[in-house]
C-alpha cells in the first residue's frame, strides 16, 4: 500500500468517520457514559454551548506547559467529565484571568479529531504511509525487545538515543529523561536550539541567568525592548509595558523588523541585523564619555571595567558604530543618554538576537551597557533575558538509578541542557551526548555503537531541527524510531511506532516559568481520551515489559500515578520560596515567589563574585575576555531570511488546530516592496524561496515592516500544508552555548535565501 493522506487519516480516525462513530455510540446508549465523546470534532454537533453558571461546573487548576515566557495559570471548567472551556486564573496577577490565543484553543486541542488515539506501527517502513493499529502491549513488547537485543549485541545501551525538548516543560515530564536514565547509559541529543548563547553570555557576565520580575516593568522609567516582541510572544507582559508608558516611561524597540511591539512603542529604531552588540558598545562609550556611568556601582561590583573602558576607548569609533548599525549618531547619543538619565531603566533582550554567529557576544555587550548605566541589581531595572531561579524541584521523575552493571560512555562528559541540571556522583561511565542542534548529522555520524533506536518525545524533530534531507537519511538508517506525540505530524510520518500522549488536562504536573515568578499546579481535569497515556505511564509500561523479559533491566517504577509523582517533585526549598506549607495550597490558585531583586546584594556567582566585564572563562572558552564586537556571518545568498515565532503557534504546536486555522489559515513570506519590485513580485503572488538547503513555495505579502534585503517567514507547522521554514536553515552554530548547555546554539537567523515569482 502506498502513502496516501486518506489512508493515514482513516487510521488516525480508527477507520470510521467521527460522525458514524458518534451515531453508533448514541444508538447503543453509551454516548452519555463516554467522557469527552460529546465534544468530539463532529462539526454538526457542537455549535453554541450555553454558559450555565459558575456552579454548574467542576473546576480544575491547570498550567500551560508550553515553551513560552507566559506559562499561564489556567482554570478549567468541566461538566459531566467533559472540558467545556478554560479561563486564565484570576489569582495570578500575571495571567490575570486570560490565556492567549493559543491557550484559548485548548478545548479544541484535547477534542480534536486529528489527535492521535491509539498506538500505531508503520508496517510498510518509514515514510510508506502504511500504518496499522497496535495495542500498547504490542508496542511495548517491540520496543523492550529491541532495547534488550541492542544491549546484548553492543554490551551497552548507547545505541538507544533520546531527543526530547520543549513540547511540555512540566517538571514531571523530565520523567522521559528518567525513563532513559532507568535503562542504562544511553545517547542523548543535548543542548538547546532556543537560547544557549545568551545563557552563556549572562553566566559569563553575572554567573547566572536571572531576571527581574517582569511585573516590575510597570515602574521602569525607560524600557528598551531589544530584539524582543512581547506583543506577539509574551502578550501578558505588555500590560506592564503599557502601564509604564502611561506613567511617562519611554519605550524603545530596537529591532531589524517593525514588530507588533514596535508599533505600540514610543520609538522604533531599525537596526542592521547582527550589529546590536556594536550599538551597545557605542552606547556604553557615549554614557561613559558623558560621565553618566555609575562609577560607584562599578567600583564596588565589577571586575575588569578598566580593561573594558580601554577597549571602548581604543576600538569603538562612534562614526563607525553609526555606519555599521545604520543608525544616525545623534539618535544613538540621544538613546544612550536618556537611558542613562532615567532611573530605573531596563533592557529586555530577545532570544532571536542570540541566534546569530555572534549572538552571545551581542548579549554580553548589552549586559555590559546595562551594568555601566548602574541598572543591575535595581528594582524595575536589570538586563532581562530569563531565569531558572524558581525551578528548584526534586526532579524525582528524572532521577532514576541505572540498572546494576550498566556500561556506558567513557568519553568526555557533556552538560545535559539548560533545565534540571541535577548533580550526581561522578560515575565511571556517562551517557553519550550528541548536539541537538546538529541532530541529523550527529545521528548519522555516531559510531561505536551506532544509534539504532531513537525515542522522540515532547519534540517535533522534522519541524524544529535543521537540514531535512539529512534528517530523512538519519531516520531511515535507524532500526526503530518511536514518536510519542499528540498529533500526526511530519516526525510521526517518519516513525516506526507512534504512541498517543496525554494532554496536560489528562494528567498531573507542576509548572513554573523561565520569565515570571508564579508556581502553578496542573491537575488532571478529565479522564484520558481514547488510549492516550501520559509520558510517565508510558515509561512505566516500558519498565514493566523490560523487567518481564529480563528482570532488573529497568529501574523505572512499573506503575506510576502522575499525581504521586507530581507530589514528589516538591521540597522545603520550593515551599519556602513560594511561602506555602503544602502543594495542596495550590488548589486554591497559583502562588508567586517571594520578591527578590536579582544581584541587589552585589553578589554575583562569577569566579570573582562580581559583574565580570573581563571574564577569564570567556577568554578560555570563546577567545575573548571582554564583550567585544564580533561581525555577524557573511551572506551566502542574496537575501537574509529571518524566521521569528508566530503568535499563532508555539513552535510546531497550535497552528495545526481547526480553530487556529479560522483566525490564521496560511503562511506567507513577507518581502520589502523594494526587493519585490526588483523581482517583479506583487502582493499575493506565489513565490519560491530557496537556498542551498531547500525550497518553499508560498504567497508573498509586501511590507516595509521588514527591511530591504531581508525576507521574513514565521516558524509554524500546519496540518494541511507542507510549509516548514526550518527546511531552509542549515545547522551553523552560534558563538556560545557550549559553556552551560552542552552545545552551542544555532545561528538560525543567519540564513540566506533567494526568491523568485512562480
Amino acid at each position: 500500500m502506498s502513502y496516501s493522506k486518506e489512508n493515514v487519516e482513516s487510521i488516525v480516525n480508527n477507520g470510521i468517520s467521527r460522525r458514524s462513530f458518534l451515531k453508533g455510540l448514541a444508538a447503543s446508549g453509551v454516548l452519555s457514559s463516554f467522557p469527552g465523546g460529546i465534544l468530539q470534532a463532529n462539526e454538526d454537533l457542537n455549535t453554541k454551548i450555553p454558559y450555565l453558571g459558575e456552579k454548574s461546573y467542576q473546576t480544575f487548576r491547570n498550567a500551560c506547559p508550553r515553551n513560552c515566557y507566559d506559562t499561564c495559570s489556567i482554570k478549567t471548567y468541566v461538566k459531566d467529565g467533559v472540558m467545556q472551556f478554560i479561563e486564565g486564573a484570576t489569582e495570578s496577577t500575571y495571567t490575570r484571568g486570560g490565556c492567549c490565543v493559543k491557550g484559548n484553543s485548548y478545548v479544541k486541542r484535547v477534542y480534536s479529531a486529528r489527535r492521535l488515539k491509539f498506538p500505531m506501527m508503520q508496517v510498510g517502513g518509514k515514510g510508506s504511509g502504511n500504518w496499522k493499529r497496535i495495542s500498547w502491549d504490542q508496542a511495548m513488547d517491540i520496543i523492550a525487545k529491541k532495547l534488550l537485543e541492542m544491549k546484548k549485541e553492543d554490551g551497552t545501551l548507547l545505541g538507544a538515543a533520546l531527543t526530547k525538548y520543549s513540547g511540555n516543560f512540566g517538571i514531571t515530564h523530565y520523567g522521559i529523561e528518567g525513563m532513559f536514565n532507568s535503562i542504562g547509559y544511553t545517547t542523548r541529543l543535548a543542548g538547546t536550539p532556543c537560547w544557549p548563547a545568551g545563557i552563556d553570555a549572562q553566566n559569563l557576565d553575572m554567573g547566572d541567568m536571572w531576571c527581574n520580575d517582569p511585573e516590575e516593568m510597570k515602574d521602569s522609567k525607560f524600557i528598551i525592548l531589544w530584539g524582543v516582541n512581547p506583543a506577539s510572544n509574551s502578550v501578558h507582559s505588555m500590560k506592564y509595558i503599557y502601564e509604564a508608558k502611561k506613567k511617562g516611561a519611554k519605550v524603545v524597540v530596537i529591532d531589524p523588523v517593525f514588530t507588533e511591539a514596535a508599533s505600540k512603542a514610543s520609538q522604533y529604531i531599525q537596526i542592521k541585523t547582527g550589529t546590536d552588540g556594536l550599538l551597545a558598545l557605542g552606547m556604553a562609550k557615549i554614557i561613559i564619555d558623558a560621565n553618566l556611568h555609575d562609577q560607584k556601582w562599578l567600583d564596588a561590583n565589577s571586575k575588569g571595567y578598566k580593561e573594558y573602558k580601554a577597549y571602548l576607548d581604543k576600538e569603538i569609533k562612534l562614526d563607525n558604530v553609526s555606519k555599521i548599525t545604520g543608525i544616525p549618531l545623534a539618535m544613538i547619543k540621544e538613546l544612550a543618554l536618556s537611558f542613562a538619565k532615567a532611573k530605573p531603566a531596563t533592557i529586555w533582550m530577545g532570544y532571536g538576537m542570540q541566534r546569530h554567529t555572534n549572538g552571545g557576544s551581542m548579549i554580553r555587550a548589552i549586559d555590559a551597557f546595562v551594568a555601566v548605566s548602574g541598572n543591575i541589581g535595581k528594582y524595575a531595572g536589570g538586563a532581562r533575558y530569563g531565569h531558572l531561579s524558581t525551578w528548584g524541584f526534586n526532579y524525582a521523575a528524572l532521577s532514576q538509578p541505572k540498572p546494576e552493571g550498566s556500561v556506558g560512555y567513557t568519553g568526555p562528559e557533556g552538560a545535559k541542557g539548560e533545565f534540571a541540571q541535577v548533580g550526581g556522583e561522578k560515575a565511571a561511565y556517562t551517557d553519550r551526548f550528541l548536539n541537538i542542534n546538529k541532530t541529523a548529522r550527529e545521528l548519522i555520524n555516531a559510531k561505536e555503537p551506532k544509534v539504532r533506536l531513537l525515542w522522540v518525545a515532547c519534540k517535533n524533530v522534522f519541524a524544529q531541527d535543521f537540514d531535512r534531507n539529512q534528517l530523512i537519511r538519519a531516520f531511515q538508517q535507524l532500526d526503530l524510531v518511536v514518536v510519542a506525540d499528540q498529533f500526526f505530524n511530519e516526525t510521526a510520518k517518519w516513525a516506526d511506532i507512534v504512541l498517543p500522549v496525554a494532554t496536560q488536562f489528562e494528567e498531573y504536573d507542576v509548572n513554573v516559568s523561565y520569565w515570571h515568578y508564579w508556581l502553578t499546579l496542573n491537575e488532571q481535569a478529565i479522564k484520558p481520551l481514547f488510549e492516550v497515556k501520559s509520558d510517565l505511564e508510558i515509561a512505566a509500561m516500558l519498565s514493566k515489559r523490560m523487567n518481564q523479559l529480563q528482570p532488573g533491566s529497568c529501574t523505572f517504577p512499573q506503575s506510576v500515578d502522575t499525581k504521586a509523582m507530581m507530589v514528589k517533585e516538591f521540597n522545603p526549598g520550593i515551599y519556602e520560596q513560594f511561602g506555602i506549607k503544602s502543594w495542596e495550597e495550590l488548589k486554591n490558585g497559583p502562588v508567586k515567589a517571594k520578591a527578590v531583586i536579582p544581584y541587589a546584594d552585589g553578589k554575583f556567582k562569577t569566579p570573582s563574585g562580581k559583574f565580570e566585564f573581563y571574564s577569564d572563562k570567556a577568554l578560555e572558552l570563546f577567545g575573548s575576555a571582554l564583550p567585544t564586537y564580533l561581525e555577524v556571518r557573511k551572506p551566502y545568498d542574496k537575501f537574509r531570511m529571518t524566521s521569528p515565532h508566530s503568535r499563532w503557534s508555539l513552535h510546531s504546536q497550535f497552528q495545526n488546530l481547526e480553530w487556529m486555522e479560522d483566525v490564521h489559515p496560511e503562511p506567507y513570506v513577507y518581502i520589502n516592496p523594494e526587493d519585490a519590485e526588483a523581482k517583479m513580485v506583487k502582493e499575493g503572488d506565489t513565490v519560491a524561496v530557496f537556498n542551498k538547503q531547500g525550497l518553499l513555495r508560498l504567497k508573498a505579502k509586501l511590507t516595509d515592516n521588514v527591511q530591504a534585503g531581508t525576507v521574513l517567514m514565521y516558524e509554524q507547522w500546519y496540518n494541511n500544508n507542507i510549509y516548514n521554514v526550518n527546511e531552509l536553515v542549515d545547522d551553523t552554530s552560534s558563538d556560545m552555548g557550549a559553556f552551560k548547555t552542552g552545545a552551542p546554539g544555532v545561528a538560525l537567523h543567519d540564513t540566506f535565501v533567494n526568491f523568485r515569482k512562480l
Partner: protein
Amino acid sequence: MQKAFLVDGSICLGCNTCAMACKNQYHQDKGILWRKVREIGAEEYHIDNNNILPTLVSYQKAPKAEMPMERFYFSLACNHCENPACVAICPVGAHTKDPETGICKHDQTICIGCGGCVKACPFGASKFNEKMGQAEKCSMCWERQADGKTTACVQSCPVGAIAIIDLHDPKYKEYANAAPIGIDYAINAETKPSTRFIHPSMPKEVYRLPKG
C-alpha cells in the same frame, strides 16, 4: 442602558485572543467566528449586496487609513445596535433586544434558519451555520454577565483593549468614536451600532534604515 463594546485600537495587539476566547466559550464550528479581529488598512472596500432592508442601504463606508501591514486592529463582534435590523426582520422572535441591558440576543432554540438576519445585518454579525441550518451570533455573553462575570473576550484580552460601557451613561455618552478608520464598516447605519472606537496611531518616532 445600552451596553456596548469599546475597542481600543491604540493598545490592541491583534493577537486574536478575544476571537479565540469566544470559540473557547461557545465552540463555534470551523469557519465561523462571532468575533473577528480586523486589520486596519487591509480590507478592500466593497459594495455591500448583503443588505436587503431598503432603509439601511444608504450607510457610508468608514474612512480609509494607510497603516503598516498587520500591526493595527479593531476587534469586532455584534455591534448590539440600538435599532437592530436582526430583531426587526426575525419572523419568530429568535432575535430580541434586552430592554434592560440593550444586548441583542439570539436564541438558537427558536431560530428557524430563514437567514433573514444574516442578510439584514449591515455588519455581518449574524452568521449562518450551514450544518445546523441556523443563524448564530454574539449575544454579549449575557449568561456570563448575569452570573457576575464579564464577557469571554473582555476577560481574556491581555491588555484590556475591549471594555463594556453603557452608552447611556453620561460619562460615556460622547465617548470615543462611532466611526472606525480603515476597516470596511457601515458608519452612520440607521441601526445605530453601539460599538465605540479609540483610534491607534504610529509611534511618535519611527526610524527606518535608508533605502539602498
